[in-house]
């Protein structure tokens, strides 16, 4: 099985790796690049804890091959904070207590960020629909929705 030399722009920085075909994107991020902010939850495409943005679009990184990301841009939770300043979506989760155990949070943040990137003033229903592929087992959805609304109001 041939290995593949890939280049992925991770949070704006080109990163290279030699990978097996079967390596999943989430493992490329966590193990090769040591970006452990992206969590592995169910590993079966349900929970959304591993959500990252692939060319700006939320995807479940447990269900994407690393080779599929070759030549493309991946945004992870580590890239949200810029120059010591939290992204408004992070600020929203902090102010509105949008996390309890924190396991789903990286995925929620990335889905929330992508929603606000294409819809600056989402309704509550639009927020709830957008995060319907991200499960919070603490069931903290009320505050998660408030956190996204807080971020929307901040801009």
């Amino acid at each position, binding site marked *: 099985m041939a290995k*593949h030399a890939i280049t992925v722009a991770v949070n704006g920085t080109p990163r290279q790796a030699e990978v097996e*075909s*079967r390596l999943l994107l989430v493992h490329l991020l966590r193990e090769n690049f040591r970006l452990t902010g992206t969590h592995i939850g169910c590993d079966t*495409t349900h929970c959304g804890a591993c959500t990252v943005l692939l060319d700006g679009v*939320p*995807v479940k990184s447990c*269900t994407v091959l690393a080779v*599929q990301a070759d030549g493309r841009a991946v945004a992870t939770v580590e890239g949200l904070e810029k120059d010591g300043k939290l992204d408004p979506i992070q600020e929203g989760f902090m102010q509105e207590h949008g996390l309890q155990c924190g396991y789903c949070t990286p995925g929620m943040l990335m889905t929330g960020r992508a929603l606000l990137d294409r819809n600056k003033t989402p309704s509550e229903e639009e927020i709830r629909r957008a995060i*319907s*592929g991200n499960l919070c087992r603490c069931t903290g959805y009320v505050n998660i929705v408030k956190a996204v609304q807080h971020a929307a109001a901040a801009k």
Partner: protein
Amino acid sequence: MIPPPFDYHAPKTLPEALALLGRLGEEAKVLSGGQSLLPLLKLRFAQPAHLVDIGRIPGLDYLEEKDGYLRIGALVRESALEASPLVRSKYPILVDTAAVIADPIVRNLATVCGNLAHGDPANDHPATMLALGAEVVITGAAASRTVPVAQFFTGLFSTALAPSEVLTEIRVPVPPAGSGGAYVKLERKVGDFATAGAAAFLVLKGGVIERAGIGLTNLGPTPVKAAEAERHLAGKKPEEAAFAEAGRLAAAASSPSADRRGAVDYKKEMARVLTVRALRRAARRAEGR
């Protein structure tokens, strides 16, 4: 879970992909959105030696009306179908369907053509495409052919696709005036496969049903075309009595198996109920209500 080892190929053109598939034969699987295939690999339900990724082939993501058909290219994502202004205005049944497939994040990668090519009777688009009388374009290295969706599903997870072929397009006939369709799905929770699902498409003329299409999801080893129910509706008024009998006939055409989503009798009853609900909504849309 780590998929079993395989060789990955990323052809840049369709002829290149078809040549590869022709050479690799049964050892290869086509990868497009990957939202069904990668979970199968991770669970070791499939262990192909090669994956041929068609995701980098330009020009396969078209979604347009041309020569009497809505043409859905191989790389049209569910999210693109759902968001398309053309689809939202003229094909609400397709929006009904896309909106209940998995969840929004999965739909960003999952493709409409893949939903058929996978051959899973639990997938949602097959029922809708049966109701709409759609066709698929199957492309091989030497030639391409068009197959009605009604003849595409040959068994559980098996289709008319040969290992060397790619499903390159779905063709949905442009709906005539006075027509309407709807898809109704019963699911235990967001993102689940259907406990049962029903798609209905009605063409009305002079207050009477000229033609009806009914497809069922997860109610048999293949997607079910409820042909007797369709025939019963032809020539009838779009009213409760006709819908009730069509629901009964659709349930009779189903052959679900019992699982954690329900017993056989329950699923057959849901086939009846959902068929009636889909017919009511299709009729309302056909009548512009």
